[in-house]
């Protein structure tokens, strides 16, 4: 690209108005600050050249003292009608025409992504020189964005509504010990995103590079094999990396597959506070359940309450013997309905898989809402408590995925379990991945602890507001873009990538094909840092 001279001829152009062409005056930075660039473009561009929200432009500038090139990258936030007139002069009619077409243009408002200087990309602390030329970002400029990408690939960079296939967007597994949120109105692609994310995690784990275990509890039975009627596929179909996937299911048919283990928990892993989630208990019954958790701490509490000594303790706590007996009977009935409560338990295996950095899928289709919450509660408490213990050598962090997270992380939800993971889990290496259609129901303070936000199409203004107000990176400016996201499109704000990234999430079924065909990395004894055994 030819080095353009900046400024010099511009004054001359103003004087000689007739020779002024749009190339001289448009596509140049005209204002405004470090956090917002404005440039103008012709108001009547042909369709192919129209400027769209989300497109990425580059601003060429150069430092006169060192004559080094500088390239600023910026993304379009909004396009507005503009003119050089005050008031309505631009729309005043002159003869049969509008007043003066020369003075009318579109103003493009763009958000800086960062600046490329000496081949490296970083956040910009300054503004481009006024009137610096602006052009659509090209391949070579996009390449710089590769530098900030991580290791968990989830899609391609999106430039407006076009893809930049050369630039895969990948999250950083280093920042996944923090919480993550995936937000979208129903049908916009949350589950698809999670499958792509899980597939990338499996790939990393199979190469011995995963930094965390991923636990997915799937109440809809859609992750394991996909949904036949929609033609979608599941995690089991990624057979190439099956060694890093552990599947557990309550579904008899799914358990027939060699890689799927029957899901079970043992009674000793259930606590009274889990039972509290299983039924709509009356207030006195809730009191009794709370008293039980205070008074009995063994694995065998349900039996202990029933023997003489245990019953006496509850009576001392101020409960009637009959209340306790009714309660116990009901608990037993409820638990018996869950066929997966057995002597054997899958939890230790699940934990070991997580600690080894694998992906764990717990498939629990057709379960009632309460039963599912109960199970999620037992599972996540077990994981958190085990992670609180001293870390063994090489233990990986873990990320617990919760579908419909507004049920458990909402204001006033009585499921403090999950909130405690949200608040203290990070210290022990346990993060949450909350998936929800209604971020507005999630407590703000919790949201502010989320370090990775995957925002997909959200129709409801309050949902967007909630996210924009609590996000670590500024998402407010992206409101228009978020409103216009289509199925599978996302804006991701995450640690390690210095700006919110527009992404077109891979369709899982396509990504599967890609992963299957991908060439394996050369295995080499001499790779990696440190000791090199075969150097000579």
């Amino acid at each position: 690209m030819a080095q353009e001279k900046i400024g010099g001829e511009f004054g001359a152009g103003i004087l000689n108005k007739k020779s002024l062409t749009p190339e001289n005056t448009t596509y140049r930075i005209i204002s405004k600050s470090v956090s917002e660039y404005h440039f103008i473009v012709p108001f009547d561009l042909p369709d192919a050249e129209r400027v769209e929200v989300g497109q990425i432009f580059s601003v060429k500038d150069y430092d006169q003292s060192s004559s080094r090139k500088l390239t600023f990258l910026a993304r379009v936030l909004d396009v507005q009608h503009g003119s050089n007139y005050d008031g309505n002069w631009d729309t005043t009619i002159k003869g049969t025409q509008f007043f003066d077409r020369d003075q009318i243009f579109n103003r493009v408002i763009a958000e800086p992504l960062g600046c490329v200087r000496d081949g490296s990309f970083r956040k910009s602390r300054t503004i481009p020189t006024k009137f610096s030329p602006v052009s659509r970002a090209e391949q070579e400029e996009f390449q710089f964005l590769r530098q900030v990408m991580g290791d968990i690939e989830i899609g391609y960079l999106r430039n407006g509504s076009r893809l930049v296939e050369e630039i895969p967007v990948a999250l950083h597994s280093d920042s996944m010990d923090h919480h993550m949120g995936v937000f979208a109105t129903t049908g916009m692609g949350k589950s698809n995103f999670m499958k792509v994310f899980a597939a990338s995690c499996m790939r990393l784990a199979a190469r011995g590079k995963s930094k965390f275990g991923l636990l997915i509890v799937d109440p809809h039975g859609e992750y394991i094999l996909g949904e036949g009627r929609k033609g979608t596929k599941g995690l089991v179909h990624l057979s190439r990396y099956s060694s890093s996937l552990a599947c557990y299911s309550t579904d008899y048919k799914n358990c027939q597959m060699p890689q799927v283990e029957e899901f079970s928990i043992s009674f000793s892993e259930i606590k009274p506070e889990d039972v509290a989630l299983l039924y709509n208990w009356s207030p006195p019954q809730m009191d009794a359940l709370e008293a039980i958790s205070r008074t009995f701490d063994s694995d065998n509490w349900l039996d202990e309450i029933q023997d003489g000594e245990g019953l006496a303790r509850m009576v001392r706590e101020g409960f009637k013997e009959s209340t306790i007996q009714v309660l116990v009977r009901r608990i037993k009935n409820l638990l018996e309905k869950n066929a997966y409560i057995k002597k054997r338990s899958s939890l230790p295996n699940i934990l070991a898989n997580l600690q080894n950095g694998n992906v764990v899928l717990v498939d629990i289709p057709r379960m009632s809402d309460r039963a599912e919450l109960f199970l999620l509660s037992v599972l996540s408490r077990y994981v958190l408590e085990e992670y609180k213990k001293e870390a063994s050598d090489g233990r990986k962090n873990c990320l617990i995925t919760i579908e419909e997270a507004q049920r458990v992380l909402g204001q006033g939800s009585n499921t403090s379990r999950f909130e405690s993971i949200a608040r203290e889990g990070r210290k022990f290496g346990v993060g949450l991945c909350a998936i929800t259609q209604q971020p507005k129901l999630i407590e703000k303070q919790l949201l502010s602890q989320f370090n990775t936000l995957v925002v997909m199409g959200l129709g409801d203004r309050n949902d967007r507001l909630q996210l924009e107000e609590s996000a670590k990176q500024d998402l407010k400016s992206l409101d228009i873009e978020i409103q216009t996201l289509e199925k599978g499109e996302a804006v991701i704000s995450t640690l390690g990538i210095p700006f919110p990234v527009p992404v077109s999430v891979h369709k899982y079924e396509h990504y599967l094909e890609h992963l299957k065909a991908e060439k394996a990395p050369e295995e080499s004894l001499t790779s990696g840092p440190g000791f090199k055994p075969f150097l000579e």
Partner: protein
Amino acid sequence: MKIVHLADSHLGFSGYNRLDEHGRNRMEERVYEGFDLAVEKIISLRPDAVVHAGDVFHHVRPKIRPLVVFQRGLQRLTDAGIPVIIISGNHDAPKSFSSSSPFLLFEGMKDVHIAQRYAYERFDLDDHAFHCIPFCLEPDEYLQEFGKIERSGRDVLVMHGLVESLRNKRLRTVGEHELKDSLLKRDFDYIALGHFHGQARVAENAWYSGSVEYFNFGEAGDQKGLLSVDLEDGEALSVEVRPKNMIDHPPVDCSGLSTEAIAEVLMELCDPQAVRDKLIRITLRNVSRAAFRRIDQVKLSRLGAEAIYLKVRPEFDDEKEERMERPADRFSLQQEFVDYLSQESREGRIAEAIRKEVAGYGSAVLEKAVAAKNTEVLDAPQ
């Protein structure tokens, strides 16, 4: 149908450097004897079939002796009308297609069915289908091979490897493969597992029979023997082959004990009758270094003359850390090495990246070295 399940005979295992009057390794002889006893026991139980779930031989290229012992045992079993099903394990399966398996010698013997081709094989005996998954070359092949199973309605599964949920009780060997718990399906009448040397039930219908012998002190707490299994009701009964010969004495607190007092403790524990043909370990806690040094080493070694192995482990009172001093037997040398490296790295003396590489590369080399040492020089190269 009634079957006997055994595994991990490790014929050819030798160790502990004690020779008998003919100059043969006593441990090795004991292993052969144990196998003969097991065969006798099986014949007396009159099962409809025997299943050996892997690691018949300790080496991929066994010497003549273990081959003969095994051949004799097979013959006796089949002569008694008991068919035998065998799968290869991580010890006796060559690690590549190009080398030949010791089991080729026994193929074609009447009533002997051997799965050793790194792939699923099915043998139908009486009204049951025996689905055998021998040692496979890649860990992820087990899922694939398992996928080939077609249920007959009366099914037995035979596999060799460490079941995921037993991982904590690691049996320390190289080249072992992990078997996912998801393979332990409920619809098998019985699942016969090999590799773990203790008797253990790992699912409602899945058992490790354990080995007949005690090979190292990691196994001191294990129950051993055969399992006699009734396939109709899935009941598995433990059958002892020979009395336990491994004694790992609970640590003796020697705080303040003089040389004489320590000697007395040792004499008491090592009564010649009590140590005869045994593998014994005695741990002395808080021993005074000076007092221990004055114990006559010659007499001490004479104490254990009747034993196959006697190890006295002093933990001195001046040692800040209690460091376990395990006998560095060849069987677990690379594991010792890997453990040592992790400890060094935990304590910051070796960088993590280096630990990983040294552990990976080093233990492969050690394994080779150990295997080379264990391979008879007289064996013709394959």
